[in-house]
């Protein structure tokens, strides 16, 4: 029983970070109806920024999100203007955006590989290897901070979406794009802004990733696969769904890893993906998509 709770705690502290990573992806999908395959590649960029800030300037990776978030926000705005604004209204926009984000992911991977080579990296601030003792249980200090911070950021995002005027406009666009246009929401601007926020969240995720996991330029393929499983489970475009999906799968993968061995842990995500697509393709909290 003790072991079970220990594994559960491990899963929970992982879940918050997964939720943060998934929240940006699901927000962008919700507003723009595009699956940003490059989301995890942007996380890797931010992880490199945080890594070098730590190794060269001794800036704590957690503090680094103060600049990875704004940097990635503006990168997001630029990417939106350079690419997405141009293909808007084209025939087959849906297919085009998948190809486009796929290409962006490959380009990012190539550029990062050229400059930083493919060696595995990970920042190691003191808390990355420390443990917090909770009675008989042990929590990784780094994971604990990262999860708390992630949940904090998600709450901030929720408050922003729920109460600000722009938040209303973004939710309106998510729920019914044409209705949003009818009441005078500038849908184009909301899409750009949401993409920026999505990228800022990828930036924060990258800062966390820099000390929680090892990374290298090609690592984003593994991450995007996991993140897609999380948001498909929760229901694409639903923030609450991303949160639930992240915790459910983080805990499930921790349990699978413990009882069947760590090599089986990654398969949890894909198994969950298959099952959910077979039985509830709209996700746990998603609505059935209308054609």
């Amino acid at each position, binding site marked *: 029983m003790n072991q079970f709770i220990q594994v559960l705690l491990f899963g929970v502290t992982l879940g918050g970070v997964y939720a943060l990573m998934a929240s940006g992806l699901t927000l962008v999908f919700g507003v723009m109806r595009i699956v940003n395959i490059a989301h995890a590649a942007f996380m890797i960029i931010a992880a490199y920024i945080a890594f070098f800030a730590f190794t060269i300037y001794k800036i704590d990776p957690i503090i680094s999100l103060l600049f990875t978030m704004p940097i990635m926000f503006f990168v997001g705005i630029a990417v939106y203007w350079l690419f997405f604004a141009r293909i808007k*209204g084209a*025939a087959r926009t849906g297919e085009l955006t998948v190809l486009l984000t796929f290409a962006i992911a490959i380009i990012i991977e190539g550029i990062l590989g050229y400059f930083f080579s493919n060696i595995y990296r990970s920042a190691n601030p003191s808390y990355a290897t420390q443990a917090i003792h909770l009675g008989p249980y042990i929590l990784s200090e780094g994971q604990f901070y990262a999860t708390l911070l992630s949940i904090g950021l998600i709450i901030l995002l929720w408050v922003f979406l729920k109460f600000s*005027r722009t938040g*209303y*406009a973004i*939710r*309106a666009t998510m*729920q*019914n794009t*044409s*209705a*949003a*246009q*009818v*009441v*005078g*929401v*500038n849908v184009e601007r909301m899409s750009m802004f949401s993409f920026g926020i999505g990228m800022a969240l990828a930036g924060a995720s990258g800062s966390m990733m820099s000390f929680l996991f090892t990374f290298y330029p090609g690592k984003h393929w593994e991450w995007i696969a996991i993140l897609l499983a999380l948001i498909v489970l929760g229901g694409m475009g639903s923030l609450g769904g991303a949160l639930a999906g992240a915790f459910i799968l983080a805990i499930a993968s921790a349990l699978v890893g413990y009882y069947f061995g760590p090599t089986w842990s990654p398969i949890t995500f894909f198994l969950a993906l298959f099952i959910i697509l077979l039985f509830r393709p709209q996700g746990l909290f998603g609505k059935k998509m209308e054609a």
Partner: protein
Amino acid sequence: MALLEVENIRAGYGEGPDILTDLSLEIEQGKTYCIIGPNGAGKSTLLKAICGLLHPREGSVTFKGEVLNKLRTDEILRRGISFVPQDRSLFPDMTVKENLRMGGYILKSRSEVEDRIEEVMVMFPILKERSSQQAKTLSGGQQQMLAIGRALVLRPEIIMLDEPSLGLAPKISQYIFDSIIRLKDTGMTIILVEQNARKGLEYADWGCVLDLGINRFEGPADTILNDPRIQELYLGRQGKASQEKTV
């Protein structure tokens, strides 16, 4: 000078063909217009071209002497033209109150929006009763009232309604038409697109018959109602109009 002038507009979607080929129409202040015509005649397209959801390829839309062609929807809303689309276009997961608030999205002052929401709730008391309910839980008639109410938050000079009675039971659709009369009594200019042409014309001052993207015929609503040619071609014989509604 007419309040709103549509002159020789040509319009269509994306790279598709022209839906409106050469359409002209004059809207006078305070009158109610009913636009009828077969499916695909361009009725909804006309309304979208007026409110900036679609930019005309040629021709002009002029409101109080100002050309609206290139303006965004929010800029046109600000000038006093509101649109209630055919599918009602609500925000399903937002409450009735939040939907009404979104109606005042382009207004800066929150207290002003709240005041206007109160006015709308006086007009449609059911919206007050249901104010904290999600829009998706409302009945069809209530959703239509919410959609109209949301457009009224801006106190528009012109309100354009696209098929407000579509899919509603006769009693409910009667209530919606009565509300339109109440709007008319406040001096508002109304442009109504109705599949149920007979019903729409009964409530309008002026009727326009659209066909293949042009304004084929227009005149006082009762003249159109009783014109044998129009009856034959567009209104259908007795009783046929009500069947059309279910299409």
